[in-house]
C-alpha cells in the first residue's frame, strides 16, 4: 500500500493494524516480493515524496513497479530522467475526471477543468480512475475502476535462462504448446518438432522455430531417426518429450544423447520399470499405497483363478495407454473365453479388481527435482471422457485433496522418479479412497491447468538444470477448469447423459478452452481440421 494525499499520517493503532494484517505500507520505501516464483521489487512514492529514496530505488536491479499516487509526480519529477528505470508506474488521484469525455476529465479535484489523459495506460504508466465516488455528483462517462494487470514472464523479469535453446518434441500435443509459451516466458528459444502442418504447434505463432519432420506413433522408426538427428546436431540445450513414445525413445538413448543436451526424461532402467503398470501396482501393494488389488505375476488363466481375486476383474495391457486392449470380465467362465478369443498373453497383462466407475478419475501432477524432492504438485479431476467408455478427459478441474498428494509423493519417491510425473488415480466410491492406476513419465496432456493454477513446471525444469535451487510451488488455485471444446461437442452428441452431467455441459464458469485464444486461434482451427480429416479417413 502506498501513500496518497489523503493519508497525512498513520496512527500507532493503524501501524499495529498493518502489522497484524500483513499489510506492507510503502511510504517512500521498497520491498522485494516473490509472486508465482517471480521476483519483483515494489516501491511506493508517497505524496510527501522522497527523491533521495527514489534515486536509490531507481538504481536497484530487477523488475520494478512504482505505485505513485499522483500522476503529475511521475510526469514532472521522474519521466524521461535518469531515475525513470521503472517497468510499471501505477497512479490514481484524478478519479477519472468525475465527468469524462474520452480521455478528458471535465473536472479533476485540485488539478483543473478539462484535463487530458486522466485515465488509461500511457506506455508503462497506468492512471486508474479509482474505486469509489467521493463527491456529491455522480460519475458520468467514468465508471469506477479496478485495474487487473497480468504480468507475463516474457517481460524479462526472469532472465536466468534467456537464450537457452529448447527442443520440444511432439508438436501435435496441446501440452507442447503450453510448454512452448512457458519457455518463451523464461526468455528461452523454443523449437518444436512437428509431423503435420495441422499439428497444434505448427499452427501456433508461439514457437520460434518449427521443424516439419516425423513425429507420430505410426512411424516410430522415423520418429526415432528425427529425434536422434536433431539432438545430435548439438544445437539444443534441453530436449523435452510430451508423448510416451518420444519419452521412450529419449530414455532408451539417454546415455548416448546426454553428451549433446539435457534430456528431460528418466534413466532407462527407472523409466522401463515405471512404464510397466504391473510394477507400479507391485510397488503400491508392497508399500501399502492404495491401488486396485492386482495379480501382478500371473502367467496364465489358472494363476488368476488360483488367486483370491474377486470378480468382476479387468485385464489391460501392462504397457500402453488409453482404453486399447481393456477388458472387463464378470465371471471365471468369461475370463477363459476372453483370453482364448483375443489370444491374450496373460503375462503381458495387468489383472486387477474392477473399481466401480461412480468415483472421480483424478490425476496428481508433480515435479520432482534431481535430489528427489517434490517441488510442486497439483491435482485435477476429469468429469467427462471421450470416447465415452474410457477415453481422455475433456473437462478437467483443479481440486485439492491432501491424501492424493501424499500417495503420489510416496509413490514417485519409492520408484525413484524425477522431473514431471503424473499419477493417475480413481477414487473408489465405496470407501472414498484414491487408488493408483498408473504413472505418466512426461508432462501431462492437461498441462495448461497447471500453468493457469499457478505452477510453472517449465521454470522448475530450468531451475533443476541450471539454478542452485528449484522454487517450491505447492500452492495452486482450485476450481480452474480446462475444456477441450471440440471433443466436448462430440461428447455432447454421443452421451446419453448430456443434460444430466455434473458440472453441467452448459456451465462455463472458470472455464478456459484447452486450445483456443483470441491472440493465437490457429491451434484450435488446426486441431479441428486434423480431427475432421481423421474422422473422414476412419470412415
Amino acid at each position, binding site marked *: 500500500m502506498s501513500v496518497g494525499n489523503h493519508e497525512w499520517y498513520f496512527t500507532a493503532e493503524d501501524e499495529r493494524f498493518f502489522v497484524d494484517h500483513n499489510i506492507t505500507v510503502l511510504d517512500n520505501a521498497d520491498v522485494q516480493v516473490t509472486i508465482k516464483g517471480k521476483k519483483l521489487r515494489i516501491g511506493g512514492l508517497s*505524496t510527501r515524496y522522497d527523491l533521495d529514496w527514489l534515486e536509490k530505488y531507481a538504481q536497484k536491479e530487477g523488475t520494478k513497479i512504482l505505485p505513485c499516487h499522483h500522476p503529475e509526480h511521475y510526469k514532472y519529477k521522474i519521466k524521461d530522467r535518469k531515475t525513470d528505470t521503472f517497468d510499471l508506474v501505477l497512479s*490514481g488521484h484524478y478519479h477519472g475526471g468525475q465527468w469524462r469525455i474520452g480521455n478528458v476529465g471535465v473536472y479533476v479535484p485540485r488539478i483543473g477543468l478539462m484535463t487530458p489523459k486522466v485515465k488509461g495506460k500511457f506506455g508503462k504508466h497506468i492512471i486508474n480512475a479509482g474505486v469509489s465516488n*467521493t463527491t456529491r455528483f455522480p460519475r458520468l462517462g467514468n465508471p469506477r475502476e479496478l485495474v487487473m494487470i497480468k504480468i507475463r514472464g516474457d517481460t524479462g523479469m526472469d532472465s536466468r535462462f534467456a537464450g537457452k535453446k529448447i527442443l520440444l518434441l511432439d508438436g501435435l500435443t496441446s501440452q507442447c504448446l503450453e510448454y512452448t509459451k512457458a519457455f518463451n516466458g523464461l526468455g528461452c528459444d523454443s523449437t518444436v518438432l512437428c509431423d503435420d502442418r495441422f499439428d497444434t504447434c505448427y499452427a501456433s505463432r508461439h514457437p520460434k522455430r518449427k521443424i516439419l519432420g516425423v513425429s507420430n506413433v505410426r512411424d516410430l522408426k522415423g520418429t526415432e531417426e528425427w529425434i536422434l538427428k536433431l539432438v545430435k546436431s548439438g544445437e539444443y540445450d534441453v530436449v523435452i518429450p510430451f508423448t510416451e513414445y518420444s519419452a521412450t525413445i529419449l530414455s532408451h538413448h539417454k546415455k548416448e544423447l546426454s553428451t549433446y543436451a539435457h534430456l528431460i526424461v528418466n534413466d532407462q532402467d527407472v523409466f522401463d520399470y515405471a512404464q510397466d503398470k504391473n510394477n507400479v501396482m507391485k510397488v503400491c501393494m508392497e508399500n501399502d499405497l492404495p491401488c486396485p488389488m492386482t495379480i501382478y505375476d500371473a502367467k496364465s488363466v489358472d494363476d488368476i483363478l488360483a488367486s483370491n481375486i474377486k470378480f468382476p476383474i479387468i485385464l489391460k495391457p501392462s504397457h500402453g495407454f488409453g482404453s486399447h486392449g481393456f477388458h472387463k470380465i464378470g465371471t471365471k467362465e468369461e475370463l477363459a473365453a476372453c483370453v482364448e478369443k483375443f489370444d491374450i498373453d496373460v503375462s503381458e497383462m495387468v489383472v486387477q479388481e474392477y473399481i466401480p466407475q461412480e468415483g472421480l478419475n483424478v490425476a496428481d501432477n508433480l515435479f520432482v527435482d534431481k535430489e528427489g524432492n517434490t517441488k510442486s504438485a497439483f491435482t485435477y479431476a476429469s468429469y467427462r471422457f471421450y470416447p465415452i467408455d474410457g477415453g481422455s478427459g475433456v473437462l478437467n478441474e483443479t481440486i485439492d485433496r491432501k491424501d492424493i498428494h501424499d500417495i503420489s509423493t510416496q509413490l514417485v519417491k519409492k520408484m525413484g522418479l524425477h522431473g514431471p510425473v503424473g499419477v493417475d488415480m480413481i477414487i473408489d466410491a465405496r470407501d472414498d479412497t484414491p487408488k493408483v492406476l498408473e504413472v505418466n513419465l512426461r508432462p501431462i496432456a492437461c498441462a495448461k491447468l497447471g500453468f493457469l493454477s499457478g505452477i510453472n513446471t517449465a521454470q522448475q525444469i530450468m531451475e533443476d538444470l541450471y539454478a542452485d535451487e528449484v522454487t517450491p510451488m505447492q500452492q495452486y488455485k482450485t476450481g480452474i477448469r480446462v475444456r477441450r471444446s471440440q471433443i466436448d461437442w462430440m461428447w455432447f452428441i454421443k452421451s446419453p447423459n448430456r443434460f444430466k452431467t455434473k458440472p453441467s455441459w452448459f456451465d462455463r464458469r472458470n472455464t478456459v478452452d484447452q486450445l483456443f485464444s483470441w491472440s493465437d486461434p490457429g491451434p484450435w482451427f488446426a486441431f479441428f481440421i486434423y480431427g475432421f480429416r481423421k474422422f473422414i479417413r476412419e470412415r
Partner: protein
Amino acid sequence: MTDMHSMPYDDLLMLLQKQGPDAILLSGDTLERHEEGKSEWSFLSMEQWQLLPEMKGSMVSLMRVLDRLVEHKGIEAEEEEDLGLAFLRDIS
C-alpha cells in the same frame, strides 16, 4: 486499485474475491487521515507536495472553490466505522 477513500466496499470486495488476484497493490488514498493538528502537515503544505502552485498558479484559488463543491464523503463515513481499515482487514 486506488482512491478507496474509506468508502463502502461490498461490491468491490465481491469483485476482488471473484478475480482472485495474486497480489493487490493499493496506489494511495485508501484511508482518510487528513485532519489538521493531528500531524505536522496542513492543507497548505500538502498542496505544495502536490505541486499545485507550480502547475496552476492563479488558478489555485478558483480550484479551491470548486473543490469545496465536490467535498469528500469519506470523512462522514469515518464517523461510524473506519471502512478503510475494515476493507484492509477483509482483503488481507
